[in-house]
């Protein structure tokens, strides 16, 4: 158990090792956030949408703040599989799926915390309609936090499946490119899911990708009423359990047929 905790400490060390990269990423995302909001404001000036612009700007900033939760794969893990250094992990007295899950989780958690805090601080200072609006209410904030946490568990389970695919193909790029594209679109990173047509909503909000960031953001902005929160948390949890179970099974099959090539 303590070994798994230690992985978090290691990740923190690693993130702090590259402070320049963190700063660069922060500036880049700040820029992206502003551009996106300017774009949506232009769109709204021509044709106002049903969703208020302050919700959209909050949506964009929360997406940017937790960007590292979605699109950040640990290159070390894929490299380990590719080069065969995974052989070392196979001779540790650890549960392999859990060890990799924790490493993915640690990277996403520590990475996003490091970015989210300054990002949200800046976003709060921006004027209404440009920045991050305060949550729809105390209950909105209180339900969005556990939703965000379950989203984190869910995205880690999703990514561990990508790792299992990498063990088959030995190259993470194909699978990652495909899954990242789906993630960008259906997690609401390219276009907030709230702006998709109404007829799409029943489907896209039930996909696993919507459980990652879209659900907690909608709870925060009040797009989802607080009374709907239990159902949403339940759906998120169900996806998380399903994805973790699928990943666990995939890993177990892989471990049986695994070959570590070369001497």
């Amino acid at each position: 158990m303590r070994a798994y905790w230690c992985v978090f400490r290691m990740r923190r060390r690693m993130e702090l090792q590259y402070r320049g990269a963190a700063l660069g990423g922060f500036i880049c995302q700040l820029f992206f956030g502003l551009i996106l909001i300017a774009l949506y404001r232009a769109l709204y000036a021509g044709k106002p949408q049903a969703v208020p612009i302050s919700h959209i700007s909050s949506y964009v900033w929360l997406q940017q703040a937790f960007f590292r939760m979605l699109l950040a794969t640990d290159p070390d893990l894929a490299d380990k599989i590719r080069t065969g250094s995974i052989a070392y992990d196979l001779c540790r007295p650890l549960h392999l799926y859990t060890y990799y899950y924790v490493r993915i989780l640690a990277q996403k958690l520590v990475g996003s915390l490091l970015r989210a805090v300054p990002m949200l601080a800046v976003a709060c200072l921006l004027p209404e309609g440009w920045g991050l609006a305060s949550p729809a209410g105390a209950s909105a904030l209180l339900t969005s936090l556990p939703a965000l946490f379950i989203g984190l568990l869910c995205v880690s389970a999703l990514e561990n499946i990508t790792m299992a695919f990498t063990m088959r193909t030995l190259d993470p790029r194909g699978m990652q490119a495909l899954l990242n594209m789906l993630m960008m679109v259906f997690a609401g990173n390219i276009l907030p899911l709230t702006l998709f047509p109404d007829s799409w909503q029943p489907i896209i909000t039930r996909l696993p990708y919507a459980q990652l960031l879209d659900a907690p953001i909608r709870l925060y902005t009040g797009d989802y009423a607080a009374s709907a929160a239990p159902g949403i948390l339940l759906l998120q949890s169900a996806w998380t359990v399903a994805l973790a179970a699928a990943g666990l099974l995939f890993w177990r099959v892989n471990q049986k047929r695994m070959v570590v090539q070369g001497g």
Partner: protein
Amino acid sequence: MSYITVEHLRKTFTVRKKKDRGFLAREKTTVEALKDVSFTVKQGELVGYIGPNGAGKSTTVKVLSGILTPDSGAVRIGGRVPWLERKEHVRRIGVVFGQRTQLWWDVPLLDSYDLLREIYRVPEADFRRRMNELSEALDLGSLLRTPLRQLSLGQRMRAELCGSLLHCPELLFLDEPTIGLDAVSKLALRDFLQWENREKGTTILLTTHDMEDIAALCRRVMVLGHGSKLFDGALEDLYARYRNALPVQELTVQYPNIDHVIAAMYQELGL
């Protein structure tokens, strides 16, 4: 009662090769990495495991360390079957894969060791004592706070070794551990392995192409070729058998270069 028992071990791999003609056509061939290997090792033995490239040495190590499941055959190490009781088995062994890395690339060595300490649940005091032993033997003292990526190949190799020995394994697999080491480090490493073997009674299986390592460390050698065991016995016997193969200038020295002996043997066996 032997510590390691290996009986009729077999492992095949499927290799897909490109055909001579055509862009897409490929043929499936089966490579028999281990054909029928049997041996036993007693507790506290230091055995050299040699053979030409592609002989199946690393495959054996991977099977014995619980990474690969063999096609058939029986293996018992300290009463356990490695691939069936993986977690219990690996807690007691240490492995060094000379070509791969187990330490974290971006963080100082000490942090990587700390994680290993947690993984193997080594008590703090034991860890500190062991760390002192190892950093002295492997001359790591000044490197402990340096990130792995800034170390040279030889330094990295020493750091890897330290990582594999931290939890005082009772069985140690060394797969080409002296790659990239300078003369001084190599000698220090040999001394250390001898000490570890003598004082702690650690059983060591050493795979290498460096015959000096074998000559310095192992009284018993096993030679593997084409997936079969070809020789198992004392190093002196191997010398005696292939004495004719030695070039004249080597005959007068007390310890002839063993590379000639091995090369002659491989040649005779058609490897």
